[in-house]
């Protein structure tokens, strides 16, 4: 980027959208976690009539009055939603839709009246609240957004523990006597502040996106609230900065949609590549898990085959000996090759073909797998009443069952001579 690109005005706009994104990411995290993502959307739509009314009342473009109007009508919309939900048979989704569309309709009616008022109409600039105009950000706006962000940050830091509790277990919080409703209202107030100050910049619909996207993206990277808040704030900041920079680079492109699309890219990237929760990460984990299940199935079968001749290790002559339920015939070649690579199996030429022999390491693994399998069988046989809640055959017994139960099951296997035992019958020298 050249120096001419980073003019003073651009810097101001960048600062403004960056702060706006960061603040939206911060408070939006709570909205997303509280399953109130679309309440922010409703709030943004519901703010419009307040803006227009304030304009009509004051008679000129007076920012504090308009923002106050927006705040009041936005919160009124949220109150109507919760009133409809609790007092009538109208469900939450319909309530949100009704408030959103009717308030917005009223906003359109009022702003058209403003526009048709001779003298002031063109100066109102209410249109920019629908799609947003980042280019209009001035130094004063940056201070205001900075102030709002600071307030949000302070409130969240001060009431961090309380917010955390209401977010993750509102019922528990209520039972414990925490003021859940006031906390929710406080949260709504913070969201309303973020929305109202963001409206002139990114517009109604896209403001909702800015609340949801950073938090939804951050959710893929962490399961803890603290890191989530930091990450969502950072995402919001980055999204705002990159979006503004892009729209400044390509003239004629409105910043609001670009910011949202940048956010959508960040979100998509998170969905795909985030470790553990991401789609790719989960696919890899599922693939690994399936592979380990395959390995275990073959090793178990191998142990069953060689067990009668222990402590001597009998070579397995043909792959056909392995056929049985539980081994995957289609993938068997690959599984066997993998076991050879891992040093669990040895393949040796023999008259007319090859034979496979378990190595010492392979036998140890096979024995462990077989032992676990038989413990599970024993468990299902002798404690079927527990099986429904405790049996998870994809896991090892030691991870699911209590040690005393395992000892009991082992004794049962030992009594019938079916406990794979490395002890006295261990490998012959």
């Amino acid at each position, binding site marked *: 980027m050249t120096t001419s690109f980073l003019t003073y005005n651009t810097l101001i706009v960048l600062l403004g959208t960056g702060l706006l994104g960061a603040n939206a990411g911060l408070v939006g995290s709570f909205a997303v976690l509280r*399953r109130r993502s679309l309440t922010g959307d409703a709030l943004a739509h519901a703010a419009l009539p307040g803006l227009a009314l304030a304009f009509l009342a004051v008679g000129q473009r007076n920012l504090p009055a308009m923002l106050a109007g927006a705040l009041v009508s936005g919160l009124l919309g949220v109150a109507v939603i919760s009133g409809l939900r609790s*007092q009538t048979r109208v469900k939450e989704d319909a309530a949100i*839709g009704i408030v959103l569309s009717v308030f*917005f309709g009223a906003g359109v009616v009022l702003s058209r009246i403003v526009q048709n008022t001779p003298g002031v109409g063109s100066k109102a600039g209410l249109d920019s609240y629908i799609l947003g105009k980042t280019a209009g950000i001035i130094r004063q706006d940056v201070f205001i957004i900075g102030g709002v962000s600071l307030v949000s940050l302070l409130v969240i830091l001060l009431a961090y523990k309380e917010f955390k509790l209401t977010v993750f277990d509102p019922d528990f919080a209520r039972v414990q006597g925490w003021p859940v409703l006031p906390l929710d209202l406080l949260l709504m107030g913070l969201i309303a502040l973020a929305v109202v100050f963001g409206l002139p910049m990114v517009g109604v619909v896209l403001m909702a*996106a800015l609340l949801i996207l950073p938090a*939804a993206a951050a*959710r*893929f990277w962490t399961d803890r609230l603290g890191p989530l808040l930091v990450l969502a704030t950072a995402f919001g900041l980055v999204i705002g900065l990159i979006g503004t920079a892009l729209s400044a680079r390509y003239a*004629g492109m409105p910043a*609001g949609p670009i910011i949202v699309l940048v956010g959508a890219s960040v979100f998509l990237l998170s969905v795909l590549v985030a470790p553990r929760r991401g789609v790719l990460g989960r696919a890899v984990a599922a693939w690994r898990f399936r592979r380990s299940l395959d390995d275990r199935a073959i090793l178990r079968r191998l142990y069953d085959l060689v067990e009668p001749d222990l402590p001597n290790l009998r070579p397995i002559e043909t792959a056909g000996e392995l056929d049985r339920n539980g081994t995957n015939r289609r993938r068997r070649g690959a599984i066997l090759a993998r076991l050879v690579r891992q040093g669990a199996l040895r393949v040796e030429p023999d008259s007319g073909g090859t034979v496979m022999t378990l190595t010492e390491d392979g036998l140890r693994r096979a024995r462990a797998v077989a032992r676990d399998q038989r413990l599970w069988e024993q468990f299902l046989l002798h404690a079927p009443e527990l099986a429904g809640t405790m049996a998870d055959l994809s896991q090892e017994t030691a991870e699911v069952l209590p040690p005393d139960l395992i000892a009991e099951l082992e004794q049962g296997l030992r009594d019938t001579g079916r406990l794979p035992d490395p002890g006295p019958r261990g490998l012959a020298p």
Partner: protein
Amino acid sequence: MSTPSESKARPGWLAGRRLGIAWLLAVAVPTAWALAVSDEIGRWTIALGVLASVPCAVLGCYLVLRQLSLLGDAISHAVLPGIALGFLLSGQLIGPAIVAGAMVVGILTAVLTQLLSRLGKVPEDASLGVVFTSLFAAGVLLITHAASDVDLDAGCVLYGLIELAPLESSPIGGIEVPRSFWGLGLVALATLGFVTLLWKELLLVSFDAPLATAVGINATVIHYALMAMVAGVTVAAFEAVGSILVVAMLIVPAATAHLLSDRLLRMMLAASGVAVLCSALGYRGAVALNSSVAGMMAVVAGALFALAVIMAPHQGMLARAITRLRLSLRIAREDILARLYRDEEQTSPVGDEAPAAASVRTRWVEALARRQLRRGGLVSDSASGPPTLTDLGRAEARELVRAHRLWESYLSTHFDLPPDHLHDPAERLEHFIGPGLRAELDADLQAPAADPHGRSIPPERP
């Protein structure tokens, strides 16, 4: 007075055929007025509004019932890129390409939302928000960037310019018919056909999707067909009412109708009526205020919804308040009768049977209940002292006291409650124990003569 038949749900203050006629008049009269006072352009505007909003309202019923309202909202935002792409590919503002593009994007919205919440484990509302805002942003970008030199501007798509639609017309048989009339009419017919042909399937999938699947209806296909229809209707209406206010026509009439009716067909008719009213009154309102027709339609819809919230026959706040008041009046009357009866008994001091509820109840309900008792001839005023029971009143009171003491005996016999825990539950339940239940209790307890406190249980008949 305390018979079970009375405690059943009463019909609302308007019911059955009378409701239908009242409803028809409530829709027809204002609409006729609006048509009568408008000029020709105005009449066409109203007609186009009706054609655009009635299909939305009908399909909206399914969305509201299945709690998919916000999916409707999302689709109506998300069709924007479909419209833009259809326009870029075909070069036409109205036509099959745009409708097809919108339908594809509509289905895409539904699929992507499901995919995100299932595969990505994102909460449903958040994934909906992510999908539609992103698609909407892409649509705005496409329109402002690629279509800036033609008459497809974001404002027109967002707010709709129904005022201008009648101006573009062509004569058919001597009458100037707006161009968009045909497109909207076609979509309305298609909606009608869709709902009629798939009535049974849609009904079953809406109310019991697992059952629908069990009887061999492919619920997924029906679901996505519905979503495609919603997208199609949305895009047909966007010119008239704008893509954002389509949400109003999708959700608000259906939600209003849901407050008025419990049957799908009636709900759809009511929703259509609301949609017609929105178009007619919305247009007149817009003319009066010199403002946006689409916005005014949404405002009228909101006003009608608010009216329904307050006035609906069963679900309305007024009706529910009246039901509650009736119940508390009946309980107040019965408590007074029982109190007088116990005073008459004189055999034992009233003691713990003293009316605890009376202190809680507001004074005016008590006063009203007294007046009703006097009017009904259940109680007569004596010149001095408290009022006395008439024979009619005594019979009622006997039933109530009998119910109370039978219930106390029952609780004491079967639940081992200590004597001081018997009165309160019996005081609450006595109002809901009819002759049938009294007979059963009597039989179960082998016709006891006295309750656990030792007071005699009055016989069913003296």
